Structures are given as C-alpha cells and as structure tokens.
C-alpha cells in the first residue's frame, strides 16, 4: 500500500471511514469518533491540496481505528474469559454442593 502512495502521490489516501463507523457502533466509542474526525480531515486536506497533511491524517485515522478495534477485541476476550471463569466456578460449586450465600 505505502509503495503505491510513493509512486502516485496524487491518489487520495485511505480515510478509514468505514472502519471508524464499525468501531463506533461496536463499542469503544471515543476511538471510533476520533477516527471519523481524522477521516474528515483526510478528505478536506486532500481537496485543499495539502497532500502531506492528508497522508498524516490518514495515518492518524488508521491509528485510532486500530487502537479502538484492539481495545474492543481485548474487552471482548476479557469478558469471555470472565464468563467462563464464572461459569466454571458456579459449576464447581454446584458439584460440590457449596453455597456461597
């Protein structure tokens, strides 16, 4: 991808808008909104002729969308582990006939 940018500097850089929308909708919202802000900067800077600025905004948009995605995935994995741990504890308690309350 980066090579093709160097060959053709006038190609509008990827603005990560779709990815930002997905991150916004599937939680971890501040990062998705940051992604939308940078996506808007990519477009407006490119039309204004600020190609370096557009490329930088594209990089930032990608960064925040990826941070949002990985944090979202991390929260999901921690959640699944917690559910399994809770379920296993409950199962163990039921088998041992232990009551915690």
């Amino acid at each position, binding site marked *: 991808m980066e090579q093709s940018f160097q060959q053709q500097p006038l190609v509008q850089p990827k603005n990560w808008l779709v990815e930002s929308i997905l991150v916004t909708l599937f*939680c971890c919202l501040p990062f998705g909104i940051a992604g939308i802000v940078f996506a808007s900067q990519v477009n407006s800077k490119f039309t204004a002729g600020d190609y370096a600025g557009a490329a930088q905004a594209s990089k930032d948009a990608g960064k925040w969308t990826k941070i949002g995605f990985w944090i979202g995935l991390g929260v999901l994995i921690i959640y699944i582990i917690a559910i399994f741990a809770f379920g296993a504890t409950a199962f163990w308690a039921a088998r041992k006939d232990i009551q915690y309350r």
Partner: protein
Amino acid sequence: MNVYFRSKYIHFIVISITVLFVALLYFFYDARSPNSLLPHCPFHWLTKLYCPGCGTQRALSSLLHGHVKQAVGYNCLAVFSLPFLIYAAIIFTLNVFRKKQIKLQIFYTNWFPKVLLVVVLLFWVLRNIPSYPFNMLAPS
C-alpha cells in the same frame, strides 16, 4: 505484487468468515433475551449512559429475525448506517476480485464524514435525554 494480492485474499476470507460467524451467532443466540451472556457496553456499565453503539447487538439479532421496526428501536444509527456498510462491503468484494479498483465515492466527499460526525455526536447526546421525543432514541 503477488504477496500483496495473496494478503488481499486472506483479508477477504478472514473478514467473510468473521461476518458469517457473527451473523450465525446473533441469529441463534439472541442478544434480546435479558440473561444473554453477550458482552455489555463498558461505557454503559461505567456511566449508566448510552453510547452511540448501545443496542447494536440487540438490533442485529432483531434484524436477523426480520424485525426491522424493533431494530430501529434498539439503535437507529446502526440500522441506518447499514446500507452504507453494505455498499462498502460490495465495493470491497469487487476490489478483491477485479483488477480495476473502485473508490467508495461518498466516503471520500468533503461533507459526508462531517455530517456523520455531527449525526453521531447528536445521537449520543440526544439518546441520553430522558424525556419523550428523545427517549425514543434510547435502546428499547
């Protein structure tokens, strides 16, 4: 060149499998049931406020069962952004299989991301106002 195209196909296969898995999960495991074990929004858990994404899982389950009106009630932003996401998915698929690359036209206009930002921020604020016309935006 070859490596680039191969990574593109791997991308496509991984995304397709993920989408299919998520669709099957939300079809057979209903997010609408009150004791569902699907993850809850960490923002809502921390602040008791709704984020722009709250209700997306329930909306997904109701959409997959054909209840569009109910899905709009859970998260209308998710439902109304669906046509754009489907459009993006179609263009992405075409770009994987064809040499000629198409750009997502509206996503690269000056106004679309700005309008979207305003809509998302307004939606976030308005759905937390607990009185009549606005509480229709909260997940229910």
